[in-house]
């Protein structure tokens, strides 16, 4: 008899060592998230996957699943808190969906839609962030970076390159490039790197086939993120 946790009154089996979000994903239960991706080390930074476990607030990506946990996920209060987090992300970056190539394939946008976000609510911070277009095939638009460090982890763990890091504190935190000039063109990045495919926003993009996916064929055009089987968008097509 497998051990189970209970999410929103549904018993869900888990295996030893799984986090709550991993168990949920395996059972097809969607817990909103941005910095988490299956197969990656937990990060716990975006706080979007916050759930309550026996009444206590925890992030589902860092909390180990334990037998008999009573997890609340899809509640009004949690959804409202998550919406506020996404609104803050939109307000503190420069996210212009109407002309972003990632629109329709963007996890940030898809999560915003699924949380019924209609405006940013908070005042736009309009930060001044630089663009790195030095590489012929890869574009880094820091305006769209939500500092989830998925690219940092992918570059280290999958690409074995260590191209990216976050630097600075608070509002001046930004993604930096591990190269002598600090530019992508002098780094080891390649357009097929996992680090580019894993980016949940349009911050890191493969530049070689811009806007090649027609509207209607993008990942979230037809099925909202919370109803897709996998919670992990496959951006392979979008970025190659």
């Amino acid at each position: 008899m497998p051990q189970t946790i209970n999410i929103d009154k549904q018993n869900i089996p888990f295996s030893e060592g799984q986090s709550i979000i991993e168990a949920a994903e395996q059972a097809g239960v969607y817990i909103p998230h941005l910095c988490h991706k299956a197969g990656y080390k937990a990060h716990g930074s975006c706080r979007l996957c916050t759930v309550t476990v026996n009444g206590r607030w925890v992030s589902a990506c860092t909390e180990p699943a334990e037998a008999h946990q009573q997890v609340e996920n899809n509640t009004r209060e949690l959804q409202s808190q998550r919406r506020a987090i996404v609104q803050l992300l939109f307000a503190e970056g420069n996210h212009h969906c109407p002309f972003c190539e990632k629109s329709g394939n963007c996890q940030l946008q898809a999560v915003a839609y699924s949380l019924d976000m209609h405006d940013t609510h908070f005042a736009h911070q309009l930060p001044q962030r630089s663009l790195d277009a030095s590489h012929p095939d890869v574009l880094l638009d820091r305006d769209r970076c939500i500092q989830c460090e998925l690219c940092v982890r992918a570059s280290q763990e999958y690409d074995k390159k260590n191209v990216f890091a976050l630097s600075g504190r608070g509002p001046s935190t930004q993604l930096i490039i591990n190269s002598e000039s600090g530019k992508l063109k002098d780094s080891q990045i390649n357009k097929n790197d996992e680090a580019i495919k894993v980016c949940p926003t349009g911050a890191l993009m493969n530049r070689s086939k811009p806007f090649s996916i027609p509207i209607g064929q993008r990942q979230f055009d037809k099925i909202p993120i919370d109803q897709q089987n996998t919670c992990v968008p496959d951006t392979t097509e979008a970025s190659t």
Partner: protein
Amino acid sequence: MEIIDKNKGKRIVIDPISRVEGHGKVTLLLDENNRLQEARLHIVEFRGFEKFIEGRPYEEVAVIVQRLCGICPVSHHLAAAKAIDQLVGVNQLSPTAEKIRRLLHYGQVLQSHALHFFYLSSPDLLFGFETDLHRRNIIEVIKDFPDIGRQGIQLRKFGQDIIQAISGKKIHGVVAVPGGINRSLDIPQRDALRAQLPDILKKSKKAVAIARDLYLSNIDIHKNFGFIESSFLSLVDSKGALELYDGNIRIKDKAGKIFKDQLDDNRYFDYIQEEVRSWSYMKFPFLSELGIEKGWYRVGPLARVNNCAFISTPLAEQARKEFIQFHHGLAQAPLAYHWARMIELLHCAEQIENLLQDEDITGNELVVKGCPQEEGIGVIEAPRGTLFHHYKINEEGLIQKANLIVSTTQNNQAMNDSVREVAREYIDGQEITEGALNQIEVAIRAYDPCLSCATHAMGKMPLKVELFDHNGELLDTKIKSSV
């Protein structure tokens, strides 16, 4: 409306102008004897696209600039795409890409022309310029002239269906990519559009007849309404035929003689300049060779139908011949724009029919590659006239400089002059009736101006700021010059 005494003269302001795309303001300056001294169409919107695309990657530009407008985004998308093709070194698209872009463009011109004639202008023409303002709208047209109203809605919808099928959305879709397109039509989509064609062709033909008959029904007034004489500029193909997607520039003078022909549209800066005036965000383009005073010209349907030697599709060509014959070779009356606009609508319907029979539109060769360049220019005939997009990029592919000359801007002087002519006729002293007010708007509306498109520039317009106290005393004036 407000009437202001200013020094000895008087100023009458009409604000806002209704049923045009965007927001404008007209000021009429009267002299001491209450005679019209000057008329000005002010553009009070401010957009700034040329400036804020600076520093953005070139590949995004065709998607950004279409946000200039909700009426003709496709024209901006395609003009930018043509410029970007040059940036990636592509001079010849694949047949599929070229034909899909053309099909999209014809759909766009058709829907925009239908919108303008049936929704915005037909209320004036059907009910009369002085009829109660509340009657002059498309809802009343549908009530009193249900066939005409329905016809307008169906024609517009067909144009939008084409746009949606190709670009994924009715407004602000995406299909053009550097060197081509991201999809062709699939067979079911093509067949669904084909099925509508017989009805659309019939309705397009009828649209020409309606525009013609309305124009002729009150010809004595219509032919003189806001009458001005100007030269005309448009694209034509190598044989001088009407060309909406890709051609060379032809200019006819006010007598109808060809002044310049087959000018390379990529060298537009050799023969077109723009003047900035302190009271409007919209610039005043003119032909360099003729100077500011004499060099202004008109663009759009009237210019195109006047300028071309023929139209390649039979029904529109027949309609053009009748139009030209009636006008003895060249039409100058602003209200003739409507007739010319419907001739173009018919041409678009015929071209769409041709393209929907063409196997290439379902082809697979979507993108062509080339050798990148630092500068690209795209010129297209948008619904309202010739549209120029010009970009320079740096070695990283980021926009360094952008110049857009939009259709409405090129009709700026003409609109001001037509307003002056109408105001002279209908404004008497400081009395301004509701009817007279609309006469002025009708003159502006004939040009189908898109004031949103026309005010895209930033950092170039002179700006005058005046500070008044509560008694109306001027405390300070600051002027930012245009250079």
